């Protein structure tokens, strides 16, 4: 077994997606890139579904510019995540859009493509993986972990073999809601390791249950090659384990890492300061809560649901709705409780409980899911659901979902004209004009270095309520007055 482990940094992507509603801007990242580069990470994940989307919708930043800017200033290989055939959304895109998107990620500097399908239907990875392989891009293909009677160790062994057959350079176990326990890891990880047959394995988990660090220890014991972590201020809670903690555990186990702890402390210090400067929350270690394993509904969704139920004056029926959600999940063939399937299950549960009758109203997307529009289901649909949904046999789909979607690039090209570059063409495929107009502002001027003293001076300089500021430190003396 290997006595070496590599770290994949998620601070610039999933960590702020979980803790800051994805609101970290490029401007906050650039000053610390040169230090991040010295920490000794194997890969740095900089792009993913929600990040791309929030860049456009809320930060009014061009996500392609972010990718290019970060990649230009990082020597460490950059990793970009897509949701397989759905890219940055939950819709399905045609194969030509998926392939063009992969080529543009590579052209803008991404070296490792990470891709997954929320149903673990690996036919939804074919177009992205083959596009990456064509241009010699590394591929990390993920399988999503969930708890159900059908998601057994051998289920994941089968998925592992499929991913390797597709041509993945690495495979990952992705545990988006932190459901893995050390007990399950002790059977699942050796099983997947055997099936991987030498292909490096990555682990991606979250800390909602508080157990993730222990699960990471199991991964190290079982020969996993790479672990997904974030720096301490942006770790824990809904985020991933802290790189500091996992590094310490690795050292205790006599496992070698490439991390430079002095550089890491500097980077961690910067993000700790950034939390303060930007008034954003730091991750807190979550206490173990067994309820997480019963309904599996993510915490963010429960708080949203509570709000909705209160507006219906049925806030007290939440436990009933969560129980119904468990039954619906079984009826629907055990979808993984992440977006968008989490919304399906929860919305259907509310409808069933509020209407006092199961499946009286079935949302259109749930019928489409049941018909196989998004891919193969993990288990058959229940008879009760089939009966109520009244899906005709000719409406069922069994082919690869991407096959049903006509090519899009030629049409977009003729609509937008030859002058439009591929990055803009893709943005036009994903978003309407109103959302894209604000992206046309001139690119911000980014700074690429900082230090605590520079941050102090910038901070004082931005306080408009001061008439005079005087700072003296280590031979430097600055006085500003108005």
């Amino acid at each position, binding site marked *: 077994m290997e006595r070496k482990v590599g770290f994949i940094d998620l601070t610039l992507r999933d960590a702020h997606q*979980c*803790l*800051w*509603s994805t609101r970290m*801007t490029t*401007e906050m990242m650039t000053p610390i890139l040169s230090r991040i580069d010295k920490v000794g990470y194997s890969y740095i994940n900089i792009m993913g579904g*929600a990040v791309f989307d929030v860049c456009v*919708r809320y930060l009014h930043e061009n996500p392609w510019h972010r990718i290019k800017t970060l990649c230009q200033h990082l020597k460490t290989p950059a990793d970009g995540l897509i949701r397989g055939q759905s890219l940055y959304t*939950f819709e399905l895109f045609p194969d030509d859009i998926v392939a063009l998107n992969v080529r543009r990620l590579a052209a803008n500097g991404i070296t490792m493509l990470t891709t997954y399908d929320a149903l673990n239907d690996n036919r939804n990875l074919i177009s992205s993986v083959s596009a990456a392989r064509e241009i010699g891009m590394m591929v990390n293909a993920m399988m999503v972990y969930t708890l159900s009677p059908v998601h057994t160790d051998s289920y994941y062994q089968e998925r592992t073999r499929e991913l390797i057959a597709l041509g993945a350079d690495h495979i990952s176990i992705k545990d988006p809601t932190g459901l893995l326990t050390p007990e399950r890891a002790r059977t699942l990880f050796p099983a997947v390791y055997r099936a991987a047959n030498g292909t490096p394995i990555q682990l991606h988990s979250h800390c909602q249950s508080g157990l993730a660090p222990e699960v990471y220890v199991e991964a190290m014991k079982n020969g996993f090659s790479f672990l997904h972590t974030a720096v301490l201020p942006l770790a824990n*809670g809904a985020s991933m384990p802290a790189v500091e903690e996992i590094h310490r555990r690795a050292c205790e186990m006599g496992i070698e890492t490439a991390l430079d702890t002095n550089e890491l402390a500097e980077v961690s210090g910067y993000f*700790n300061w950034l*939390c*303060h*400067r*930007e*008034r*954003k*929350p730091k991750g*807190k270690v979550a206490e173990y809560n067994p309820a997480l394993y019963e309904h599996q509904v*993510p*915490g963010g969704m429960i*708080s*949203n649901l509570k*709000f*909705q139920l209160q*507006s*219906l004056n049925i806030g007290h029926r939440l436990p009933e709705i969560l129980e119904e959600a468990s039954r619906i999940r079984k009826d629907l063939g055990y979808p993984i409780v992440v977006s*968008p399937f989490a*919304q399906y299950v*929860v*919305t259907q549960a*509310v*409808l069933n409980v*509020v*209407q006092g009758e199961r499946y*009286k*109203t079935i*949302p*259109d*997307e*749930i019928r489409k899911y049941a018909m196989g529009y998004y891919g193969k289901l993990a288990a058959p649909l229940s008879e009760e659901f089939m009966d109520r949904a009244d899906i005709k046999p000719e409406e069922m789909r069994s082919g690869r979902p991407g096959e049903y979607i006509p090519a899009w690039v030629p049409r977009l090209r003729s609509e937008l004209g030859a002058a439009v570059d591929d990055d803009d063409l893709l943005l036009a495929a994903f978003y309407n004009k109103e959302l894209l107009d604000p992206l046309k502002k001139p690119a911000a001027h980014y700074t690429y270095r900082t230090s605590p*003293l520079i941050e*102090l001076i*910038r*901070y*004082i300089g*931005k*306080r*408009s*309520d*001061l*008439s*005079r*500021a*005087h*700072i*003296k*430190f*280590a031979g430097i003396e600055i006085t500003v007055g*108005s």
Partner: protein
Amino acid sequence: MSDRNLSYEDLLQILKLVESSSQFAEFRLKLGDIEIDLRKASPLPAPCSQEPPSSSGKALSPPEMHPSAKEGSSAKAAGEHPQKADQRTAHAGYGETMFDAGGRSAGEVSSDNFPEGVILIKSPMVGTFYHSPEPGTSPFVEVDQWVTPETTVCIIEVMKLMNSIKAGHSGNVTHILVNDGEPVEFGQVLMVIDPNGGKKE
């Protein structure tokens, strides 16, 4: 505090002191190697509560004003669809029907005084009412149109899921009471159908 290397930890400590002294006109700190001397422009206290939570750099409000606790818990879901949450917050509590897209006066169609024998199509859930399949396309149904039980009359969107609502009865659409894109409540009357009225076939 170290002598030569100001660390991020030092920086945080210093700024916490600066921020906790915002009610004073003058701030002086001498600690080891570092000296800071700040003077306020006017004796007025620094503005606190109106500071937007994410404004970069302009951190005048004292640390206890952090909105962070609120943001933390639902961060993941909010990251995906924050605008939805906003829409819902903005809308609270109209149980009455108010709009009449057909051009009749609002008073005529409050929920209590629909004519005898009509059928009310009610929203099966809280959500957003959409009158047409896609933005800019023609509506599913219009006033004075004859519908059958299977006719889709509108879409109600809940948590990004689209629910096609069928008429459930045959009849003539006499009122459409909600505007396209408006939030609707559970049980809110969306449309009125007269089973006997209009151009029966």
